[in-house]
């Protein structure tokens, strides 16, 4: 690889590092927006709705009682020579009872969703956990890795450009020969961290059955 190509590679690595940072920000932002919506809905369901529908139950029971009283008054107003129509009062009572039934149904639905929504949120978090890890800690590691590669390549070019740009390995590119050991170093660190996390997890849950058992 010529030095010119290495410079292009460095610019591409820098641009990709920026793209990775933007991706991380956008992905975490998107997940955060969904979390805000979840919190808003939970707050509404667990605090606003029970109060609202209990109040509506009370109001609608009162409306049914009023409609019943109106109908009763109309019915006892009957005389042998005249019988006033009760159609309007019966319709008002029918509507009031339907409205009360609706409120009773909504109270049951609020209770049902309080449990069902928690389960749905739990399942949703299962579908996004991997992305959250990748967009946060893994993207940060990848960005750090790219930064190390860029720094090393730039240092190499500072030395090599004046002397004619010789390829240090002869067979591999400068990028490969310089970035390769950095990548291996990062992977080794990752493995150590993963082993450490695994040991910590095992230590935290000593009763968890071993996968091989």
């Amino acid at each position, binding site marked *: 690889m010529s030095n010119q190509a290495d410079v292009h590679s460095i610019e591409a690595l820098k641009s990709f590092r920026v793209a990775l940072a933007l991706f991380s920000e*956008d992905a975490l932002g998107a997940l955060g927006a969904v979390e805000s919506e979840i919190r808003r*809905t939970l707050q509404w369901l667990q605090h606003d709705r029970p109060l609202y529908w209990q109040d509506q139950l009370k109001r609608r029971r009162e409306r049914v009682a009023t409609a019943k009283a109106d109908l009763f008054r109309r019915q006892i107003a009957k005389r042998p020579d005249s019988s006033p129509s009760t159609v309007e009062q019966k319709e008002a009572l029918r509507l009031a009872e339907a409205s009360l039934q609706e409120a009773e149904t909504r109270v049951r639905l609020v209770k049902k969703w309080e449990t069902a929504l928690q389960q749905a949120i739990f399942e*949703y978090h299962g579908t996004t956990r991997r992305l959250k890890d990748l967009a946060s800690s893994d993207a940060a590691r990848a960005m750090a890795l790219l930064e190390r590669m860029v720094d090393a390549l730039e240092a190499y070019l500072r030395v090599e450009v004046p002397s004619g740009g010789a390829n240090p390995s002869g067979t591999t590119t400068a990028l490969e020969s310089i970035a390769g050991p950095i990548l291996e170093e990062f992977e080794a660190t990752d493995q150590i961290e993963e082993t450490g996390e695994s040991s910590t997890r095992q230590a935290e849950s000593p009763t968890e059955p071993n996968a091989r058992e």
Partner: protein
Amino acid sequence: MPNANVIAGSSRLKHAIKSLQDQWRITESTWNDSVRRKFEERHLAPLDPAIDSALLGMAKLAEILSQVRRDCSDRSEMP
């Protein structure tokens, strides 16, 4: 109607991964060696299934949140 804010999050995620993939294609054209392949395998390949899973989860959640709003709202509160 699916929940608008969750759908917006989902669109943002799709746009984010597309931008990253576009930039990666440009990067690939100047970086073609074993280190690039390892980097891709380690840091980029896991993104696709993770994004697919999250988008599926978001779509399902959006439906559920809309259903909750419909079921627990008063008719007079519905848009």
